[in-house]
């Protein structure tokens, strides 16, 4: 029998394999990544310039604070988008390339497979978010005199566990219905972002949307990052926010894995692991 240590070693090598594969793909599609980065930077600029636009049209606002507020929202939107895209496409991407059956018949645990996808998404998304923040920041005077960057990154990393869990929940959709599933993944991502106060406080939302905001990890991630960057809040001050994010993550990851497992059984029952595209 294989020892626990050997099994753990195999699973860790498998996680590394998922990351390795995504690195190869990133290298092969690097100019697409550059193009999407430029597009996201341009899109972020159009949003952040709204702060100056309000002042130019006569509004009395703290422009530096508003531009920083909008920039944080846009960067986190981009970060979440990458995480959801990578994890949601765990199935859709492989089905398109035709490798899905080979991945699903390998002895790698599904949790290890998805952990590899999530780990790559978090690292890639974080690097990309920092690049966008840095590039767009060059265009504005930002309100960062009290910023606690370390605390902001810790909040983002803790929140990423929940985001990965929700990503795994949406990744199951293409297993159940190859095309509609991928479409529903985008819808879920959009809904999550709208209710989470990306460019506005959630207090402005209608009451029914506030309920959704209260259970969205993005709400707490945005609050935490803004508190850290705009007001210099430290990790001690943000204990309750981090606690809620840990709690949501502790629910989302097992729920995501259970849903994915059920989706995989459904796909195997109905013959949906075959190639499409």
């Amino acid at each position, binding site marked *: *029998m*294989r020892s626990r240590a*050997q099994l753990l*070693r*195999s*699973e860790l*090598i*498998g996680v*590394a*394999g*998922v990351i*390795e*594969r995504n690195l*190869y*793909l990133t290298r*092969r*599609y690097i100019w697409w990544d550059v193009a999407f980065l430029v597009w996201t930077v341009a899109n972020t600029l159009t949003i952040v310039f709204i702060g100056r636009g309000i002042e130019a049209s006569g509004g009395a606002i703290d422009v530096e604070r508003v531009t920083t507020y909008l920039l944080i929202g846009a960067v986190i939107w981009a970060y979440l988008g990458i995480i959801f895209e990578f994890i949601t496409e765990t199935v859709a991407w492989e089905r398109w*390339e*035709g*490798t899905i*059956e*080979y*991945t*699903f*018949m*390998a*002895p*790698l*645990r599904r949790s290890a*497979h998805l952990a590899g996808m999530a780990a790559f998404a978090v690292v890639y998304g974080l690097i990309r978010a920092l690049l966008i923040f840095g590039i767009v920041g060059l265009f504005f005077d930002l309100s960062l005199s009290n910023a606690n960057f370390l605390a902001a990154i810790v909040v983002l990393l803790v929140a990423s566990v929940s985001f990965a869990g929700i990503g795994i929940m949406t990744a199951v959709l293409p297993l*159940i*219905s*190859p*095309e*509609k599933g991928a479409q529903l993944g985008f819808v879920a991502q959009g809904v999550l972002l709208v209710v989470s106060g990306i460019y506005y406080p959630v207090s402005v939302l209608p009451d029914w949307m506030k309920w959704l905001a209260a259970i969205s990890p993005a709400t707490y991630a945005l609050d935490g990052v803004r508190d850290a960057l705009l007001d210099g809040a430290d990790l001690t001050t943000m204990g309750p926010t981090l606690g809620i994010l840990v709690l949501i993550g502790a629910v989302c990851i097992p729920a995501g894995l259970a849903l994915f497992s059920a989706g995989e*059984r459904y796909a*195997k*029952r*109905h*013959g*949906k*692991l*075959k*190639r*499409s595209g």
Partner: protein
Amino acid sequence: MSQPHPILETPPQVLTAAPAIEVIELRKEFRRKAPRTATGPRRRRIAALDGVTFTVARGETVAILGQNGSGKSTLVRLLSTLLLHDGGTAKVFGHDVFREPRAVRRLVNRVSVEASFFKKMSAAENLSYAARFYGISARETRDEIPRILGRVGFPINRRTEPMENLSRGMQQKVALARALLTAPVLLLLDEPTTGLDPRSKLEVQKFVREIRDVHDATILLCTHDMTEADTLADRVGIIDRGKLLALKTPDALKRHYGTATLEEAFFAATGRTFAEDSDEGEDDEDDEREVLA
């Protein structure tokens, strides 16, 4: 025990007394679109496999002949743990395919008619990450990937080219290398030479023969090619509309049906030629997907 693999510290666990494959009354059904009626259901159930029973001994090569939609690929997918069954049992070296899928996955690999890869990635990259999924580290594959590619007749100097630049025959050789890299003791070949040019086909067949003769691998080969089945297999099975009609040595099969060739034996068994495609069975997986997509 199987022959130790050069790069695996722990070879897959094989229960030596058990047959390589033991399938008893295996059933798999798919739902199929049906014309809407006032009272009847919109879908009907089609048996892709209908009570299939057979055993493959360790080290044996068995070919399964059947038309498109006869159930061959469904059988391979069930044994690969890619489908769940609707009845019966299937064991691989004593491990229940549906209750112990991870144990089975360590023992099995598959080469299908489509050499499925990430097309922008190179052969070496595709093999490298695939090996990781079987717990094989980068240190272990560094020398092994060029060696295995060389063995299947793939030009080593092209291993860093994107797969999309390679011919279909080349891609199929990489698919064979991918399967071999994980040291499977049961190799499932689902029409591995379909669509290949004659030279590539002969090279792939030569390599399959080598795996059979040199290694302690058991091979289940699903094919359309009668000559391939006749020359490579110890026994040949005929499957039609989900039922396994016969499984004997090629000579015994010809004697049983009183024919001179396997093709004639196939016709005698099924009443049909290979040119006639079935519209039943496994193709219904696609039909169902279209309904729900």
